[in-house]
């Protein structure tokens, strides 16, 4: 068991990667064999991340050096800096890993029925597994170049999945837009990595964090990294690709592509807190993040309430919810250099932002799946053509209600808890920002009331007489997320104390992140 824990970080990446290339072979045996390989690999990855998380919560940060005589030998003998590929997994990384594996597993199960209507299932699952690999790699790596490599894997597989249903013109367009913005973003990230490497001659994040001087070139690299990752996470005004892409991605993969955006949000936090840390002007950068957050919240929600396409409506809400995370983390970052303010409300703001990431992944994932269930049954995403579906799709309707109440921040759902943490802490920093956040929550509720009223309530429409509930695997996929939402709603303190607070502490602890790799060097 100890050996499994030691190698769990690399195995959580390697097993889905191996399964991605086994999937086309398993497809030759049959669909059942292929599905077993995919679900088995993702379930195993989830198990590995869980045991890794347990180890990290008990024993602290996990470092894994590839190709070294011992996995914790980060700096080879006679060297001053790390030269090998290093995975550095702290409570924040593993927190994201838990989200990634859970959403990927739910998405893969949900996709089983969907794929019966499609061709190319082997390629679909290969891409789905590669997307999971890209996310896990990006979250676990301790190396800037590998950060770029995994960002590329994530982007290419995500774009191919978005364009999977090539018979729809808008799917090809959505995939094209995603790959263009991803390619530009990744190129800019690579350029920024080049700037840092040229100055400090290292690629390890910990070694860079120790060496960084915050020179003029470092400032340029910082602006490039933050804005490129902000575009990947669809922060306003860099969000316009997201509705085009999220709305066309096939069943089960929309939540994954959305979580891939959250992985980029994690990347931004890692750059700000662990790479630059207190060396940067935290107040100025904090305000940049806050402004991006407020714009995302407000523009996202006002655009969402105007939509008639249910998946575009969901996509704009995804943008809006990312704003809450940016707001919470931005406030924490703005007061990072002020120990009193950090202890008073900054830490809680960061915790609220981090808690909102996992809450949002769950309820936004569930809502994307319910939207896709409606499309699966009705063949349209247009809310104007829906009505009375509560009679035909009761379970989907109940899942929709759970997701809608959670995202709107209605007590006692989990969305309320993380928003409460953000409201209270942000109020201490700036009451106006807290009021905007609350206003956005009200408009979110209005928007989901509109969507629910249009799709599920009203008289039974004759053209929908033959519509039936979606198949069981789709219900199971939604059910996994709904159960997780209910659990997170009923036991918020348990969740916060177990996984959120350690993630916050890990994010703030730059010295610990550097020390785990550099030791006394």
């Amino acid at each position, binding site marked *: 068991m100890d050996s499994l824990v030691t190698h769990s970080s690399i195995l959580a990446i390697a097993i889905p990667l191996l399964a991605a290339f086994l999937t086309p072979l398993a497809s030759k045996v049959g669909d059942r064999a292929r599905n077993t390989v995919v679900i088995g690999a993702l379930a195993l990855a989830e198990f590995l991340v869980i045991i890794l998380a347990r180890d990290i919560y008990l024993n602290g940060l996990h470092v894994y050096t590839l190709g070294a005589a011992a996995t914790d030998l980060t700096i080879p003998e006679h060297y001053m800096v790390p030269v090998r590929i290093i995975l550095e997994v702290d409570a924040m990384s593993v927190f994201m890993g838990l989200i990634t594996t859970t959403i990927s597993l739910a998405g893969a199960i949900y996709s089983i029925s969907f794929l019966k209507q499609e061709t190319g299932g082997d390629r679909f699952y290969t891409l789905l597994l590669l997307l999971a690999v890209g996310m896990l790699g990006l979250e676990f790596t301790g190396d800037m170049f590998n950060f770029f490599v995994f960002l590329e894997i994530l982007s290419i597989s995500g774009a191919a999945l978005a364009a999977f249903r090539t018979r729809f013109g808008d799917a090809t367009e959505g995939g094209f*837009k995603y790959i*263009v*913005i991803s390619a*530009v973003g990744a190129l*800019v990230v690579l350029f920024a990595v080049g700037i840092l490497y040229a100055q400090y001659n290292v690629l390890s994040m910990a070694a860079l964090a120790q060496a960084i001087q*915050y020179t*003029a070139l470092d*400032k*340029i690299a*910082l*602006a*490039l990294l*933050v*804005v*490129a990752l*902000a*575009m990947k996470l669809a922060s306003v005004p*860099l969000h*316009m*690709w997201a509705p*085009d892409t999220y709305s066309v991605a096939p069943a089960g993969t929309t939540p994954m592509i959305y979580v891939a955006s959250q992985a980029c949000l994690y990347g931004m936090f890692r750059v700000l807190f662990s790479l630059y840390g207190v060396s940067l*002007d935290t*107040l*100025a*950068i904090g305000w*940049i993040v806050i402004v991006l957050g407020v714009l995302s919240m407000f*523009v996202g929600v006002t*655009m969402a*309430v*105007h939509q*008639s396409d249910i998946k575009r409506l969901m996509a704009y809400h995804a943008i809006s919810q990312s704003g809450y995370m940016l707001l919470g983390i931005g406030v924490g970052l703005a007061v990072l250099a002020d120990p009193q303010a950090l202890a008073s409300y900054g830490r*809680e703001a960061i*915790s*609220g932002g981090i808690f909102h990431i996992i809450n949002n992944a769950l309820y936004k994932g569930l809502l994307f799946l319910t939207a896709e269930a409606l499309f699966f049954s009705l063949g349209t995403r247009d*809310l*104007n053509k829906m*009505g*009375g579906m509560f009679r035909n799709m009761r379970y989907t309707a109940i899942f929709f209600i759970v997701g809608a109440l959670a995202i709107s921040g209605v*007590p*006692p759902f989990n969305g309320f*808890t993380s928003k*409460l*943490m953000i*409201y209270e*802490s942000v109020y201490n920093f700036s009451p106006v920002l807290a009021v905007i956040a609350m206003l956005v929550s009200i408009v979110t509720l*209005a928007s989901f009331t*509109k*969507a629910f*009223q*249009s799709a599920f309530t*009203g*008289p039974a*429409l*004759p053209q929908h007489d033959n519509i039936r509930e979606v198949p069981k695997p789709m219900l199971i996929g939604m059910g996994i997320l709904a159960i997780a939402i209910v659990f997170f*709603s*009923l*036991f*918020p*303190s348990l969740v*916060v104390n177990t996984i959120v607070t350690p993630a916050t502490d890990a994010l703030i602890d730059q010295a610990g992140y550097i020390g785990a790799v550099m030791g006394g060097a």
Partner: protein
Amino acid sequence: MASLSTWSPIVLVVAFLILVAVAYFFRSRGEARYKEGTAQTQVFLAGEEAPEPEKRHIRAQNMYWGFFQALKQYYQTTMNAHTGIINDYIIWFTSVVAIAAVIVFIAGMV
């Protein structure tokens, strides 16, 4: 966390269940029987014919008309920015990179 120390979802769920029980009690006191095909099951008590289901369902496009009308100027401006053209997305990206770089440099000088 300060906000979590005062928040207990379990208490709210218990309160909700008590309210549901009270509501169910009053509902069960009501008239259980009705006659199908009579005025009791018609949509309008006045006896007016109900429109066809398609005509009486309020569609998404008809909701919040007043809200959108009040924010017409805002929506016009925002919609115009959403061109759907990828070149424009990259222009936005370049502009935001430039603004962020300027802010970072200015903040460093202050």
